[in-house]
């Protein structure tokens, strides 16, 4: 291997499985078990990124989700942008490139921003780019922003899935604390789910050289999983991030590599009785001059590369720390044969136990790195006393820094549980839980192995109600630290947020300009608002603000932790809900027949997919609609009315119940008869119109409009259950128990006769608004004489299992009479000709029954019904009413639906609008309906439609009914 940074032995990589990959077009080789980051380091690639604003050279800083510097874009089948290189598992053929640099990583034109950096401090764009306007600057700025390009195609194969999960205890994190907790609750018989974000379980143990119970810690991990996986009450999800913590202990877990090979990713929505966050801790960086140069890395990341991946990220290392944990890193580096020049420790007193594990390595107590030197790769660092003074230059190609540890409290905080600032650890720790949640291990501030194991066991035992198990012996270096928020003697740009290029100077500028709240600082400087959401840098920002303002850390406070913990692909959230199942859809049994006829189908309320019209060759919407309308007006048509909401009501009190729900009186209906009615809300607004039929003394059928069926069902149940629980009424939804073919037109009775029925069809025996049960075409049927077209109609209801047969027989029996199927468009025309109202057209939430000329539907007899009082109050007001009228365009032309009416057609406040305008096949001209101020008194007048652009169309105002005003046809 070219650069030879791979150690001769060790690590959890499989050296027998080499993998080929490219980065920025150049070919490299790594091993199974590598991440892209470890493989790049193994190949000696140090410059891996350019920064967002100044385009400074950057390298790999971390080893996990905290990575702030190296984001890559993956290409090919894996195409996705903005992936931290540290979280991309290496696969054969992987192709990656650095984001945010042009034309190339080594020669990046945007780097000129470095020269201008003095003039583009935090928030500079608020102060400039104003002349002549923002648009001049916006396009190039948008291009410069935005990191990676978005994938241009959806995944070519596989799909995403979302599913539900349930458990007694969900454990986030399979490190030492999480595993110990899982073992404890699983042995107690609870249903356990353990989810870990890594490719491999073990958490920090993967990167450290530790023993548990006298053997290698990873052997303990393997043994623990062997026991857990043998238990039926344990679900283990690896490569699975718990990223969202919702109300009522509902959590989101996304698996990136589910066992089912059809699945790209799978999201579990888990309802957990209790949650244990064993999410570990993230190391924070230190803030000194040029702390962003390639070769400056988190100490824990260096440790991971050496121990887990068998990679030496440098040949000569300096350690800079304020705590003990970096001493173990120094020891591990030395053991791997890397020269450790010195450990600069900002503490004046270095604990003996730390000194003891780094024999032979120079320890510079009370010293800080003030500056990293070198541009594309560090060459040396300057070390000086904390208080200043002359610096010593140490040549090195690796600086491992450790600013202490931040427990990963993201999930804890998302659950609304509180945090407290802990002085000894100089960090925010879990405090009061707001939901059934516990924190364990490093996530709870237990920063040594033995403590972490104990903390996991204790949290779990408390939930299970058992005594904690014995903790195996697990020696570890005790943890101690002294906070160092920034090196005050730093030289050069000292970065707090590498991803958004936020420096200490930026924070100071924000404070100087009055942006003093930490939320202002964050927004003005954009610190902590990058892809990494400030996982390594936020606390240093808070520390810098606290120092500058002379406040305590908890007075400054944290910014809010919000989901997701790490970014999640939208595909994994949407799951299978895509394409045809993106929204529910409903079919009647004759959908296939409609499609076979070439019907133009679309959704028309309540998720029903229905035929709009049935075009024949060469016909458009208008021609087909005219033909269907003519069939109904002059011959016969048939309409599938199945989607109408239908309810069977039973009981002694149905009559008075309906009297309360409808504005007119229903209780006086005789068996076999029906009535049209309006249902109002108590606000006096029209909720629905429908028809009630009384079958016998105690059984009724209520039908509602298609679109409101579910809402009316809820409304009826609410009134019954909450207002009149003592009333004897039962409501059963029978919408799908009855399908219907509505045969309508002057020849409808002849078609009925041809179908064959035992019902007497004569108008005397079977008048309008009555219902009869019998057989039609040999099928058990309920026939209702209602009409939504103004023509003689028979609504033939049968069970859906018979609907196809009925339809075929209707078409057959109707053929000699020229029967045609009728779609929604023709139905619309027919009801407009007739002046029948339609919810959503004439009823738009502003009109009442009187406005619609239906004052007869507002019962005067009933002392109370829903909406009565509200309508009275509203009508007593002074506001002018818009009333339903017919309109005849003069000259004869179509008026767009919704076109406003204004006084004289002038450009001023409207006095109404045209609700519908259709080609009338009986008048052979355009006719319409409108809501017009004072319209009832304006019949015969001319009103004016004003179109966009100023065109004015005069319309003659008429009564709303354009056809058969006396209703002779529908009663015939």
């Amino acid at each position, binding site marked *: 291997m070219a650069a030879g940074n791979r150690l001769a032995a060790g690590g959890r990589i499989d050296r027998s499985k080499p993998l080929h990959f490219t980065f920025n077009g150049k070919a490299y080789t790594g091993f199974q078990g590598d991440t892209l980051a470890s493989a790049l380091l193994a190949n000696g690639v140090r410059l891996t990124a350019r920064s967002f604003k100044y385009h400074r050279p950057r390298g790999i800083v971390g080893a996990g989700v905290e990575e702030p510097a190296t984001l890559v874009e993956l290409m090919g089948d894996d195409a996705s942008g903005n992936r931290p290189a540290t979280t991309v598992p290496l696969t054969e053929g992987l192709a990656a490139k650095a984001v945010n640099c042009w034309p190339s990583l080594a020669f990046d034109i945007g780097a000129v921003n470095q020269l201008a950096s003095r003039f583009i401090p935090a928030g500079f764009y608020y102060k400039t780019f104003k002349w002549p306007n923002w648009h001049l600057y916006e396009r190039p700025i948008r291009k410069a922003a935005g990191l990676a390009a978005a994938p241009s195609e959806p995944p070519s194969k596989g799909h995403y899935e979302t599913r539900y999960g349930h458990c007694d205890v969900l454990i986030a994190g399979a490190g030492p604390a999480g595993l110990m907790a899982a073992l404890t609750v699983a042995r107690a018989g609870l249903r356990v789910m353990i989810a870990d974000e890594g490719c491999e379980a073990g958490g920090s143990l993967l990167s450290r050289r530790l023993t548990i119970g006298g053997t290698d810690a990873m052997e303990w991990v393997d043994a623990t999983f062997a026991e857990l996986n043998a238990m039926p009450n344990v679900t283990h999800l690896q490569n699975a991030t718990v990223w969202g913590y*919702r*109300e*009522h202990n*509902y959590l989101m877990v996304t698996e990136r590599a589910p066992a089912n090979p059809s699945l790209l990713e799978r999201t579990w*929505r888990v*309802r957990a009785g209790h949650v244990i966050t064993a999410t570990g801790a993230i190391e924070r960086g230190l803030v000194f001059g040029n702390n962003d140069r390639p070769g400056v890395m988190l100490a824990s990341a260096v440790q991971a590369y050496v121990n887990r991946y068998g990679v030496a990220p440098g040949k000569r290392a300096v350690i800079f720390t304020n705590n003990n944990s970096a001493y173990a890193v120094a020891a591990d580096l030395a053991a791997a044969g890397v020269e450790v020049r010195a450990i600069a420790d900002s503490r004046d007193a270095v604990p003996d136990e730390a000194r003891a594990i780094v024999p032979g390595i120079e320890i510079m107590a009370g010293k800080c790195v003030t500056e990293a030197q070198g541009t594309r790769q560090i060459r040396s660092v300057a070390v000086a006393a904390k208080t200043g003074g002359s610096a010593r230059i140490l040549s090195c190609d690796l600086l491992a820094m450790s600013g202490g540890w931040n427990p990963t409290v993201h999930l804890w905080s998302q659950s*609304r549980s509180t945090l407290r600032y802990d002085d000894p650890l100089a960090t925010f720790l879990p405090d009061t839980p*707001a939901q059934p949640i516990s924190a364990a291990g490093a996530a709870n501030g237990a920063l040594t192995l033995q403590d972490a194991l104990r903390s996991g066991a204790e949290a779990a035992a408390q939930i299970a109600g058992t005594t904690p198990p014995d903790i195996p012996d697990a020696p570890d270096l005790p943890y101690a630290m002294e906070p160092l928020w920034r090196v005050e003697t730093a030289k050069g740009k000292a970065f707090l947020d590498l991803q958004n290029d936020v420096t200490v100077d930026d924070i100071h500028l924000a404070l100087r300009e009055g942006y003093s709240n930490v939320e202002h600082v964050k927004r003005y400087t954009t610190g902590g608002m990058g892809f990494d959401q400030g996982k390594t840098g936020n606390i240093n920002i808070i520390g810098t603000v606290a120092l500058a303002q002379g406040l305590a850390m908890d007075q400054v406070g944290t910014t809010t932790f919000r989901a997701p913990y790490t970014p999640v692909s939208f595909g994994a959230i949407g799951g299978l809900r895509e394409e045809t199942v993106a929204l529910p859809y409903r079919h009647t049994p004759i959908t296939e027949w409609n499609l076979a006829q070439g019907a133009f189908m679309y959704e028309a309320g309540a998720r029903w997919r229905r035929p709009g019209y049935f075009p024949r060759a060469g016909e458009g919407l208008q021609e087909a609609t005219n033909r269907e309308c003519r069939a109904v007006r002059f011959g016969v048509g048939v309409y599938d009315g199945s989607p109408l909401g239908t309810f069977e009501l039973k009981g002694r009190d149905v009559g008075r119940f309906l009297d309360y729900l409808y504005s007119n009186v229903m209780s006086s209906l005789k068996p076999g008869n029906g009535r049209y009615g309006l249902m109002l809300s*108590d*606000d006096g607004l029209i909720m629905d119109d429908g028809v009630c039929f009384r079958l016998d003394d105690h059984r009724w059928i209520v039908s509602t409009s298609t679109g409101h069926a*579910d809402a009316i069902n*809820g409304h009826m*149940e*609410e009134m019954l*259950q*909450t*207002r009149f629980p003592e009333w004897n009424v039962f409501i059963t939804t029978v919408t799908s128990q009855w399908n219907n073919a509505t045969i309508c037109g002057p020849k409808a009775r002849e078609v009925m006769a041809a179908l064959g029925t035992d019902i007497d069809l004569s108008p005397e025996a079977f008048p309008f608004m009555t219902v009869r049960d019998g057989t039609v075409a040999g099928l058990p049927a309920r026939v209702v004489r209602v009409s939504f077209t103004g023509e003689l109609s028979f609504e033939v209801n049968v069970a859906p299992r018979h609907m196809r047969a009925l339809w075929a027989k209707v078409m057959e029996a109707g053929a000699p009479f020229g029967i045609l199927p009728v779609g929604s468009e023709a139905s619309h025309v027919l009801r407009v000709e007739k002046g029948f109202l339609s919810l959503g057209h004439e009823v738009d939430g502003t009109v009442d029954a009187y406005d619609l000329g239906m004052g007869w539907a507002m019962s005067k007899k009933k*002392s*109370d019904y829903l909406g*009565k*009082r*509200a309508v009275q*109050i509203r009508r007593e007001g002074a506001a002018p009413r818009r009333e339903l009228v017919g309109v005849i365009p003069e000259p004869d032309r179509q008026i767009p639906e919704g076109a406003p009416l204004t006084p004289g057609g002038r450009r001023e406040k409207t006095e109404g609008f045209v609700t519908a305008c259709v080609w009338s096949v009986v008048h052979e001209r355009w006719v319409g309906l409108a809501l017009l101020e004072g319209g009832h008194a304006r019949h015969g007048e001319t009103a004016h439609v004003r179109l966009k652009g100023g065109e004015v169309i005069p319309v003659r105002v008429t009564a709303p009914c354009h056809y058969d005003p006396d209703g002779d046809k529908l009663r015939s």
Partner: protein
Amino acid sequence: MMQIPCPFCGPRNESEFSFGGPVKPPRPDPSAVSDEDWTAWLTQVPNPLGPVQEQWWHVRGCGTWLTIWRDTRTHDIVEAPDGGR
């Protein structure tokens, strides 16, 4: 996604329910109240920063209209403020 206790079915996912609004005082007799009281009853609902009593319809379950007290700050389902229920 809350978990709502249904008196018939036990705790169920919020997605099985349809929100039915906060519980208002009983509907006054419309013929016995002033216009002002009537419109106030119609248009005003309790909007507390804290527990609110509200109705949910278990539309995808047993069909029950039920009442819960829910804290609008946290979405926790709580006992009634007076400790009843």
